């Protein structure tokens, strides 16, 4: 047995004391890991100018509305994207379906399963997107899980998104500590990497996340997966306020924004909302693009009404 390997192994995997293991682990990650790029990255991004998504979010002048569509959910799924825009979206969130959507509730799970069963792939969805890109005037934010990024490689993945005209990216199972090479890769491709804060996120960590998030800050309204709920979780308001106080990009509330009234309430505390399951359910139930446009327009109207009532909007 080679002595050097043995020593490494013992250190990494065999030491019983947490203290010792921790040291080893930290050492290993500082030399070998994506995490090692963190310091560099933060420095780079803190000096960077806002990307296309963030520019759009900041400049909307009204509560932001970001509807979500699962890519490939139907053959003509891009018409739903256009319908969202027509309904008054400030940006659209495009879900790239993944086999194991850990953070999604039943509606988005079903949508993902349906898209995958139809043969949807990242490549096909982005190709479809390209075909309608010139009809889209609002930014497209891709939402997907870390495995699809790792599988393609962070740099290649971001380049491919950029080539399809995507300007933002949300990866819900990459918390700020695990961004690794994706953060610089996104920056290099001009993709705003949107980070999430949750009700369980401590204040200091909220500040850290808001400082590194690009495009907007995704405030997860509730402790739970995506999905429609009867009422908006009260913690969303507190969380959004804390996130806005941190002074990063605009803060949008997502998860469980199920009705225009809930959206209006959320927009009272934040810069806007992401609406996903409520729309995807319509699509799963066979809504036409026109019907989806109307639903989005309903959210738009409710949000705009909050501004008329004088609610703060940055």
């Amino acid at each position, binding site marked *: 047995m080679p002595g050097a390997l043995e020593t*490494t192994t013992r250190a990494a995997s065999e030491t019983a004391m947490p203290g010792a293991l921790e040291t080893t682990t930290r050492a290993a990650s500082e030399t070998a890991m994506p995490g090692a790029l963190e310091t560099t990255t933060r420095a780079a991004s803190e000096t960077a100018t806002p990307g296309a998504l963030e520019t759009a979010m900041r400049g909307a002048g009204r509560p932001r509305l970001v509807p979500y569509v699962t890519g490939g959910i139907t053959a003509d799924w891009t018409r739903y994207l256009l319908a969202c825009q027509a309904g008054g979206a400030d940006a659209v969130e495009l879900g790239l379906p993944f086999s194991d959507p850990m953070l*999604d509730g039943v509606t988005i799970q079903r949508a993902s399963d349906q898209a995958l069963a139809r043969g949807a792939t990242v490549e096909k969805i982005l190709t479809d997107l390209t075909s309608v890109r010139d009809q889209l005037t609002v930014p497209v934010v891709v939402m997907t899980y870390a*495995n699809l990024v790792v*599988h*393609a490689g962070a740099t290649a993945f971001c380049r491919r998104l950029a080539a399809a005209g995507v300007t933002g990216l949300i990866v819900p*199972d990459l918390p700020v500590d695990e961004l690794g090479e994706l953060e610089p890769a996104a920056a290099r491709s001009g993709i705003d990497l949107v980070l999430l804060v949750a009700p369980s996120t401590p204040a200091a960590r909220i500040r850290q996340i808001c400082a590194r998030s690009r495009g907007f800050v995704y405030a997860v309204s509730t402790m*739970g997966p995506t999905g429609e709920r009867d009422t908006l979780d009260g913690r969303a308001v507190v969380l959004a306020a804390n996130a806005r106080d941190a002074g990063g990009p605009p803060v949008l509330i997502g998860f469980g924004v199920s009705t225009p009234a809930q959206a209006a309430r959320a927009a009272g505390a934040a810069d806007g909302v992401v609406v996903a399951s409520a729309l995807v359910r319509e699509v799963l139930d066979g809504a036409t693009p026109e019907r989806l446009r109307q639903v989005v327009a309903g959210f738009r109207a409710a949000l705009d009404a909050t501004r008329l009532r004088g609610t703060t909007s940055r």
Partner: protein
Amino acid sequence: GRFGEFGGRYVPESLVAACAEVEEAFREAWSDASFRHRLERLRAVHAGRPTALTPAVNLSAELGVTVLLKREDLAHTGSHKINNVLGQALLAHRMGRRRLLAETGAGQHGVAAATAAALFGLDATVFMGERDIERQQLNVFRMTMLGAEIVPVRSGSRTLKDACNEAMRHWVTAAHDSYYCVGSVMGPHPYPWMVREFQRVIGEEARAQCAAELPTSVPTHVVACVGGGSNAAGTFAGFVDTDARLIGVEAAGGAAMTDGTAGIVHGYRSRVLQDEHGQVAEAHSIAAGLDYPGVGPEHAYLGDIRRARYVTVTDDEVVPALRRLARTEGILCALESAHAIAWVLRAAGTADLPTGSTVLITLSGRGDKDMPALMATATR
């Protein structure tokens, strides 16, 4: 928490705090002598540890290789899973949690978790794919008898990997009063490390028992089956600082170490079986406990640095191996464990396991649970 580039904590932001709490509680507990003492007593008086080390005398004579069997099949509930759940339930109890959440595939971890929950007066909620529930009715019933609530998972492939996702989703909503009891050396940090620490007892006992049994003190080879890889991780932990060759045996239809590529599932980075588009593949093994597309990150690391070697055996080799061990030693081992036996049968007398070698094999569990399936196969 990483093993080289593997491991990590790839969870939604809403779970980061929960993982950190578990990590902190474990670090504190693991350096607390009273926690360790309590766990040791539980292992002894409740789980039947130490488990025996059985010299497989007849098989050894036939193979020309000295075979020693670490008998986790004799542990309470019938597999090594009890080592892990006792540790985690004790931790959950210490953290003041009222409920254990667990995912299960074949039901072995679910039964173990339900067992530990009963012992500590905790509730247990076990997430199990709908297809697995149909296939493993007896284990479902055992869990029910132990007082656990079973939640059928109807998403995706309706098997273990979907149960893992669902358990995580539920944990997000319940982290304030529930403890997620992961079943193998997988999941977000600190689980792969913590579960290995709880399973380390296999390797440490075996190390001491080998020293008493073998003139050479340490076996030349240490073999264990690998699904998620907890029995192998626990076994290897006792021998990683020796000259013993460490061999992990995967099912050919679920060989993340051999066929997997870098990926992230269930909160950790490791080797993962996936299609060309990055969608996680379903594993297919006769052994339900190896029917998992990922593998514990420490194994990915041990494989990368070549400290351990990972090999595969096919379903067709496994049943004869199980039968041969039964007929030579009177031990009906689990189909999972029979993978380790099958590799030894194939390798004995070759350069991989030369005549005269001494090989420790961990029998991760007993075979009773597999008899209905084997009966069905036999009568087909």
